[in-house]
């Protein structure tokens, strides 16, 4: 059986004004797969993620062509784009605690979706904070400010927020740049756990992290997919493209 994939991207082109940053890329992500995207800065990784959940719509100068399908449905034709964004969770690279209490940070998305019963929210908040490995540190001060947390805690709060709307696909954009190695490992464990139920797209600059977590890895460079293969191949001594080898082994450029 081959139903629709979780994400299918066909000839996606994205331009900011006259400057094209994604030059027609195609790939797909299967259900419960962990796909890593690696590549240097300015290669279009974040822009690509923004096309998936259509937050690219907020960039006035952006023009998108090609198709992005989520569960077989063209994201540009969905009626409820806010519902779409709830099914594709997004963790931004910089930790952003919203200026409200820790509880409200996590309860914000469910509330926007119309969940208001206190009991439901309580359960959800605890589950998400536990999944983001933050619960033990904040359970006694859920009323204090999300922005008053340390950088690493705010990053995990961001992850908890992304989980709070129970997405089917979770995109993480360099989630570990503000977190210490120990916490990073804890969150990686959580991601492994989560990957049994949901699809994960992981943008990372840590080559080792991609190798640990992802079954397949994409090397994106200057808005083009240089290589997309199983992580074993990408991180081996013999990837198909010389540039991949150079990048992964730190002799790029």
């Amino acid at each position, binding site marked *: 059986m081959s139903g629709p994939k979780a994400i299918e991207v066909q000839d996606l082109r994205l331009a900011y004004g006259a400057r094209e940053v994604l030059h027609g890329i195609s790939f797909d992500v299967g259900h419960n797969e962990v796909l890593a995207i690696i590549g240097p800065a300015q290669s279009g990784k974040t822009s690509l993620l923004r096309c998936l959940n259509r937050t690219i719509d907020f960039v006035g100068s952006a023009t998108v062509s090609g198709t992005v399908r989520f569960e077989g449905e063209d994201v540009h034709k969905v009626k409820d784009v806010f519902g779409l*964004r709830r099914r594709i969770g997004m963790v931004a690279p910089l930790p952003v605690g919203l*200026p409200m209490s820790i509880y409200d940070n996590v309860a*914000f998305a469910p509330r926007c979706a119309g969940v208001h019963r206190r009991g439901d929210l309580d359960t959800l908040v605890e589950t998400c904070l536990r999944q983001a490995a933050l619960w033990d540190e904040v359970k006694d001060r859920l009323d204090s400010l999300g922005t008053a947390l340390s950088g690493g805690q705010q990053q995990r709060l961001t992850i908890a927020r992304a989980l709070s709307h129970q997405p089917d696909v979770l995109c993480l954009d360099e989630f570990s740049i503000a977190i210490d190695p120990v916490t990073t490992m804890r969150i990686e464990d959580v991601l492994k756990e989560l990957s049994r139920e949901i699809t994960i797209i992981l943008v990372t600059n840590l080559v080792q992290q991609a190798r640990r977590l992802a079954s397949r890895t994409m090397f994106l460079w200057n808005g083009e997919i240089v290589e997309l293969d199983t992580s074993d191949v990408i991180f081996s001594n013999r990837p198909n493209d010389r540039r991949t080898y150079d990048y992964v082994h730190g002799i790029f450029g």
Partner: protein
Amino acid sequence: MAVVSLAATRFTKTALAARKERAEAVAKWAFFGMAVAMIIPLVAIIAYLLYRAAPSLSLEFLVEMPRRGMREGGIWPAFIGTLYLVVISLAVSAPIGVLAAIYLNEYARDTWFNRLINLAVINLAGVPSIVHALFGLGAFVYAAKFGYSIVAASLTLAIMTLPVIIASTREALASVPMAFREACWNVGATRWQTIKAVVLPNSISGILTGVILQVSRAAGETAPIMFTGAVFFKAIQPGTVFPYRLQDQCMALSMHLYTVSTQIPNVKESIPYATAIVLLGTVLLVNVSAIGLRVWLRNRKRW
């Protein structure tokens, strides 16, 4: 002993360090001096006004009617008239201005139409008040047939304050980090949900500051109301709080100050100064209450 002498050489001032220290001191005192120089005229103005106004200052001066062609008595009708004008004009311009600014900053895309609106706002903010007065005369007094009235004068003041409120509100909204909005959008919040939850709570004190500044402007301008609804003298029941109807003409402090200081011979010298003190006090009163509101709101601000 050797250790001591080593420590001494290490912490001896070098020529460079001494120069830096001097520069630091000069900078600090220059800034401090400017800050003080700014306060001096303010204190001097208030002290001088109080000194000259002293013979007339009393509660009666505030709550009584002018008598003997403004040469005696109080300024109650002008005081109340100013409050009417300020409150009504801001009740019109603040909501319109804030909502327009929210549209421009949060919803509007970079299209020719929105650029046109922006251009209009900027240019309106630079129009002299006498031009607004003529516009108010033509639009509200004649075209809309409000006649010379509080409505016409308030609307003219509202038109005058509107662009500045829009500009200052936009600035307050723009100071809310973009990352907050993006975080909300990423979890499926609509623009309005984002504005309600994050943008407004964190910009409301800045928005209020902009509105507060327009209170003083609306209270102090003479030209726009002179053409549209303010009069030299209007008899009202002394001591009543709502003496005017909206279609009435009214007296106003700024206008009254102009009248008593230039138009009427043999006015007691302290009366114009006392009028100025009341005008200052009124603006201060409105400002202080608005600042109180702002402080209260800021204490609820979460970052």
